[in-house]
């Protein structure tokens, strides 16, 4: 078990899921309440990473972050190094990769808030922002936790994007899934086994939390 890779991955997933909480809530808000007729195009773009092969995303990220792109040059002039093969580069790649796993649960829970509550709040003189903060957000707690947990878990298991833009640097970009790949490729099965088991258990626990939060104990089944 490579603990360096493990903690690196946990750090990456924690940073990404927290940033997605900050980025995802405004996007989800807009997606839920916007009446723009072309809104579906934005929704499709947000959902893209779910179906897009990670190699496609990795390829674009590598090209976009490289020293030959405007973004890459700008970052290089700012920090003195390119974004590819750095932890920051992985954070950017993972933000894109896990975006829908945060935005979709957020938007679903915002949309599930009873609109009569929103109208009542507005009639009592609350601004849309206040209504969102005091009514929508508290009622969407389960959706927020779900989005946070799913983007965390999804980032933990990221492989293709990291393989393409990471450069496999120990302690910087060698994440746990890359470490498992290396161990399997060098026929180091017992070590791969332990690492894989740890990832399996963590993923199961995170998903159990998600489903546990979203169960409806008050639901009445047809058999009653």
């Amino acid at each position, binding site marked *: 078990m490579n603990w360096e890779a493990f903690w690196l991955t946990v750090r990456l997933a924690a940073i990404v899921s927290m940033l997605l909480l900050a980025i995802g809530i405004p996007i989800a808000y807009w997606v839920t309440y916007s009446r723009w007729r072309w809104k579906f195009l934005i929704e499709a773009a947000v959902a893209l990473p779910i179906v897009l092969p990670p190699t496609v995303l990795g390829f674009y990220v590598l090209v976009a972050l*490289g020293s030959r792109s405007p973004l890459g040059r700008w970052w290089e002039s700012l920090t*003195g190094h390119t974004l590819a*093969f750095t932890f920051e580069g992985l954070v950017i790649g993972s933000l894109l990769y896990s975006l829908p796993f945060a935005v979709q649960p957020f938007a679903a829970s915002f949309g599930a808030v009873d609109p009569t509550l929103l109208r009542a709040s507005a009639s009592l003189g609350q601004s849309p922002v206040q209504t969102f903060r005091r009514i929508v957000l508290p009622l969407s707690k389960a959706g927020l936790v779900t989005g946070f947990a799913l983007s965390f878990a999804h980032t933990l298991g990221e492989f293709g994007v990291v393989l393409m833009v990471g*450069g*496999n640097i120990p302690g910087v970009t060698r994440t746990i899934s890359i470490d498992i790949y290396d161990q399997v490729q060098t026929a180091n099965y017992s070590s791969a086994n332990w690492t894989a088991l740890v990832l399996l258990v963590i993923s199961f626990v995170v998903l159990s939390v998600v489903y546990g939060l979203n169960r409806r104990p008050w639901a009445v089944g047809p058999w009653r």
Partner: protein
Amino acid sequence: MSKLLSLLILFTSALASAQEITVAAAADMSAALPELVAAYTKKTGQTVKLSFGASGNLTNQIRNGAPFDIFFSADEQYPQQLISEGLASKDTLYRYAVGRLVLWVPADSPLDLSKLGIQALLDPSVKKISIANPATAPYGRAAAAALRHFGIYDRVSGRLVLGESVSQAAQFVESGNAQAGLIALSHALAPTMKGKGRYWTVPLDAYPTLNQAAVVLSKSKQQDAARRFLEFLRSPEATSLLTGYGFSLPAEKH
């Protein structure tokens, strides 16, 4: 509908019985081997499917039952291991070339390789140096050995990025994401990279010789076809193509 389906099955099974051979090949052959195969197919009608990867990765896939007929390794050690495990036949082992390691920089690099040689890596403008992963790729081991040979490994190790194979190491530096790379000469000479950069050939005494060897795998159901393809490698046509990609022939001394 069912007629269409059975036609489809007939068609695909006819394709499969066309005696196609499947080759697992070291990443440094990714430019040369397709040309070799094209020449061979033109001559004999035999079709060959190619699959590239780091030699260590391919060895591991073969151990786990990957259905390849021939294995081209960038390091003879892997075919030897497979032979000792009974997975490849010893009498087919053929050293087809010696691989060369080069230091490659993009065309817009300010580094003067002919003057600096490997010392160019110590230049502060070199932020990242791409090499293949030494755990699975022979060229990665050669690169690490060369850096140690010149006594600069400890000074550059913090800037190394590891490609999954020597192909990815080449791609990292070709795309400008790394400023220098220790890659295969065969990639530097490949049409996709030629003219995009400059290279310095690392002297042969700086790293253990990269003896490239091919072997027919024991599980192959097409032993004869596979052996015939390996026989073709010894032909003047094949060897001149290999030397064109910077591979020196095993008998030659440099």
